[in-house]
């Protein structure tokens, strides 16, 4: 990567928060201990479905050391992350819908007293039959988990059907058609840090909440709604998040209760969930049952695809509407599919609500389609890489379902991972018990639309430079370990000629920082990064103008160097960064600049088109090598090779860290992790029994970064946090088939399933474990949508310029390469859309 013209971008460098995190200095939410602080606890339902007949808290209130007790009627306003599913109560009012649903909350002088108070609360339930599976939910005609839904049977949360292009015509043109059924079991995030929140009310009535949240802005909105306070009277501070993976992206009961208890007690209140409670808070991977019918020509080209998904949603909405659409949205971004129909339904069950986990709604369909591609390749006698290459999308095109693709390194990812792994030499040729599998994927670099409808920026950054040369960057983004602090620091440092470790950061504090919508949908590098580029370039322009006047050198002849601004040709003619800052402050007054980012409008002309669009997509391809023990059914992973189209890395260390972490999490899901229930109860709500990979299960990973310099990404960057998880799970399943010739069409691929499939095959069966079919269900009549005009044809073949109909100036989001180091207009910069 050397010689790219940047000092930090595209190179490996240490995270800015590394020293704090290795010395114990980082304060996570539960590390906060405030004067007079009380400890809160939630009483949770022990039944999966019941009406609350009587709730008596008088004994709890009377206990010495108890300062406040609240129940559902104290917080009667419903909330939820999506505007269209405001179905959660901070404390249940009439009904409990899963084991773990919160009923009451107490604040006491210490945790033990709070626990005793919870035990002293008397609850009388009227048990109701529980709906526990997809099949139960589809078949049940009387018992309702929720009071609302999308029909045609009582426990349907969402029912969608979209059809693009000529489906019947596409299947008619096919030389070969396959139908397959797959099941992706649910699993959970298992962040090492248990959720925690601290509420505090000042004497003037202002409320502050510290919380381990990926989305402080959405928590802010929910608090205002449920507590009936203006947002301006509430301050939400997201503390460094000790692992999120999507699990800390909803507003939660414990956050609202900590705030309410603090308001009632007049003292700070902290609620930290136990590990068992974290399993009930959940919002993890939806279990998804899916049916896929795909038609292909003899050469492997897809002519049509019909995709059906059944999502087991749990008891509340969470992000579920988006999750449902995501199970159908991105298949077309990796494969050119000329006719595509998607039918999806999310079902209510009496389990903790499912939501977004790394990959949000896309790992499940990716699992299905990538195994089906392998089966299609085998049917046609094609190599698994060839069938993918013949269908792979190309840069600067649209998909049949109206998604805009800009930079696209998918083919290079496939080629390079196939070469690095020796896939073609190994596939079908390794000794019995050993195998390799290939799969590909794509993911968003941020959702194109915010969660609630508004026209404001998605991310904003403010920079202040003081007369000593100190640089303070403020942004609402929250570092959840992915390295958003380092991305902000690195970008500003690159533009201003400083070191990332010198930048002071203020983040994720609704009082002190401008907005960022949150660390979800892999949006922060792209969106906060673009806002940071803009703010930093404006600051650089101020500094250059002042130095230009002082040194009597034209701004175009100045360069930003290492802690100096100097003559481009004669580097001894220059000033240090602090001198430049003092000159600029003398010229302009207080040195502050701002930048903001709003994605271009990308949604297609149909209902449901808001889920799927992104300003840029990352692409990945993975090969997994396995060893399968025919005696025990045990699957060991020997190595993973993964190529990822990153656009361009802001920090290579962070990108490789995200990719290795994604591979790890994928292997856990593929081989062992599952959120499962028995008689309404979570079977394994502990870290010991919920198996996840340890140091000993992690194989070597060879990571290949593919640079495509996205025209709209900051310095060309795209996402890395979620996409690399996606191909690993189906690649592993395909590798097991290559090793021992059995198909495990559901995850986790546990030894019992492998043994059952091997035994079946020995007895002359097909050697497959997986679902046999999908339940009878009436999807909506489809919304039929014509593909965008000229959708398959690249509009700017090979040209390194921005997408969108209007196109964007070449220099818009590029950084500090020398030709770009010149003053720009000092007017407030418009957003990308207005240019």
């Amino acid at each position, binding site marked *: 990567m050397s010689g790219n013209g940047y000092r930090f971008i595209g190179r490996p460098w240490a995270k800015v928060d590394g020293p704090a995190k290795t010395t114990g200095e980082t304060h996570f939410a539960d590390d906060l201990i405030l004067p007079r602080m009380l400890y809160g606890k939630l009483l949770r339902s022990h039944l999966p479905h019941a009406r609350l007949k009587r709730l008596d808290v008088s004994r709890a209130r009377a206990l010495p050391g108890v300062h406040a007790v609240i129940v559902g009627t104290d917080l009667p306003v419903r909330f939820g992350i999506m505007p269209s599913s405001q179905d959660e109560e901070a404390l249940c009012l009439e009904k409990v819908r899963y084991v773990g649903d919160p009923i009451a909350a107490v604040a006491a002088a210490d945790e033990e007293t709070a626990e005793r108070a919870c035990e002293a609360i008397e609850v009388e339930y009227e048990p109701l039959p529980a709906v526990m599976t997809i099949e139960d939910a589809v078949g049940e005609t009387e018992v309702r988990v929720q009071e609302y839904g999308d029909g045609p049977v009582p426990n349907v949360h969402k029912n969608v059907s979209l059809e693009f292009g000529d489906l019947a015509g596409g299947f008619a043109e096919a030389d070969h058609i396959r139908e397959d059924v797959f099941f992706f079991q649910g699993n959970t995030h298992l962040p*090492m840090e248990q959720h925690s929140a601290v509420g505090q009310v000042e004497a003037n009535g202002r409320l502050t909440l510290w919380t381990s949240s990926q989305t402080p802005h959405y928590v802010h909105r929910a608090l205002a709604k449920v507590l009936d306070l203006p947002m301006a009277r509430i301050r939400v501070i997201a503390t460094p998040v000790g*692992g999120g993976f999507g699990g800390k992206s909803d507003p939660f009961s414990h956050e609202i209760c900590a705030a309410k208890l603090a308001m009632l007690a007049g003292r700070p209140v902290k609620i930290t969930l136990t590990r068992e409670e974290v399993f009930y808070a959940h919002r993890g991977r939806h279990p998804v049952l899916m049916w896929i019918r795909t038609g292909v020509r003899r050469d492997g080209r897809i002519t049509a695809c019909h995709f059906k998904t059944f999502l087991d949603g749990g008891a509340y909405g969470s992000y579920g509407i988006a999750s449902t659409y995501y199970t159908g949205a991105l298949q077309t971004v990796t494969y050119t599919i000329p006719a595509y129909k998607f039918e999806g339904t999310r079902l209510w069950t009496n389990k903790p609500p499912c939501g977004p986990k790394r990959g949000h709604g896309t790992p499940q369909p990716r699992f299905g389609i990538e195994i089906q591609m392998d089966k299609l390749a085998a049917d046609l006698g094609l190599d698994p890489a060839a069938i993918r290459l013949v269908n792979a999308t190309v840069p600067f095109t649209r998909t049949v379902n109206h998604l805009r693709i800009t930079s696209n390194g998918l083919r290079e990812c496939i080629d390079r991972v196939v070469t690095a792994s020796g896939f073609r030499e190994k596939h079908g040729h390794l000794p019995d018990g050993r195998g390799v599998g290939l799969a590909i994927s794509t993911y968003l670099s941020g959702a194109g639309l915010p969660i609630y409808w508004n026209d404001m920026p998605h991310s904003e950054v403010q920079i202040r430079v003081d007369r000593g040369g100190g640089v303070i960057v403020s942004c609402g983004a929250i570092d959840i370990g992915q390295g958003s602090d380092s991305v902000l620091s690195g970008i500003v440092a690159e533009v201003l000629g400083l070191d990332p470790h010198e930048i002071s950061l203020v983040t994720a504090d609704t009082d002190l920082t401008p907005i960022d919508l949150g660390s979800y949908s892999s949006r922060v590098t792209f969106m906060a990064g673009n806002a940071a580029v803009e703010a930093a370039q404006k600051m650089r322009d101020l500094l250059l103008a002042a130095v230009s006047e002082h040194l009597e050198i034209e701004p175009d002849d100045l360069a930003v160097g290492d802690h100096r601004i100097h003559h481009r040709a004669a580097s001894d003619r220059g000033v240090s960064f602090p001198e430049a800052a003092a000159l600029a402050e003398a010229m302009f007054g207080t040195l502050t600049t701002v930048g903001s980012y709003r994605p271009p409008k990308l949604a297609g002309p149909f209902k449901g088109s808001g889920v799927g669009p992104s300003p840029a997509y990352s692409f990945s391809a993975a090969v997994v090598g396995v060893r399968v023990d025919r005696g025990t059914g045990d699957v060991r992973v020997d190595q993973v090779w993964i190529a990822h189209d990153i656009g361009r890395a802001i920090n290579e260390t962070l990108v490789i*860290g995200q990719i*290795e972490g994604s591979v790890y999490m994928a292997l856990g899901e593929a081989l062992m992790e599952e959120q499962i229930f028995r008689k309404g109860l979570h079977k394994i709500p502990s*870290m*010991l029994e919920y198996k996840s990979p340890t140091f000993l299960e*992690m194989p070597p990973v060879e990571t290949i970064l593919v640079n495509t310099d996205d025209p709209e990404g900051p310095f060309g960057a795209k996402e890395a946090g979620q996409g690399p998880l996606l191909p690993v799970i189906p690649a592993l399943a395909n590798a097991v088939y290559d090793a021992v010739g059995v198909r495990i069409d559901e995850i986790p691929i546990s030894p019992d399933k492998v043994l059952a499939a091997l035994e079946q095959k020995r007895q002359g069966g097909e050697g497959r474990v997986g679902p046999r079919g999908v339940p009878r269900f009436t999807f909506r009549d489809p919304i039929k949508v014509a593909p965008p005009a000229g959708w398959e044809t690249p509009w700017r073949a090979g040209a390194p310029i921005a997408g969108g109909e209007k196109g964007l100036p070449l220099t818009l989001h590029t950084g500090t390469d020398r030709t770009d180091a010149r003053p720009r207009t000092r007017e407030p910069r418009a957003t990308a859309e207005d240019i």
Partner: protein
Amino acid sequence: MKTTLGLRVNGEDHDLIVPVHKTLLEVLREDLGLTGTKHGCELGECGTCTVLVDGTPVLSCLALPVELQGHQITTVEGLAGGGHLHPLQVAFTELGAAQCGYCTPGILLAAKALLDRTPTPTRQEVAESLAGNLCRCTGYLKILEAVELAAARMRGGRGEGDGR
């Protein structure tokens, strides 16, 4: 029931009056303000709360302070000394072995115990020594590399890695 006890933590002596059933994890965090020690389960399952007692890794969520009088307890706050970070801390920072950083204190201490005992561990030995510590962010590989880099530097070699 409360008891008085003396604990030696990171070379400092503390006299405390605490309930007898309070765990070492709770006493460190709540009574001594040493919040660098984290917790992931409080059931001895995840390794997050690992501290050293006389140089040996101990799960502080399962340890009782009343049994630890007269022993040397080391937490992450005691890892750096004389104004210098421990080589493990430096290597973890350089290689991105800490992402969210929540499991990091426990892993650092488990790794220190290993390197103090085995200055030249194989990768398998490092993995086995740390297998009781879960991490959900890193995929473990950068941690293994960081422990090896720190070991090389502690032995006096220069080691590989970006020195930034």
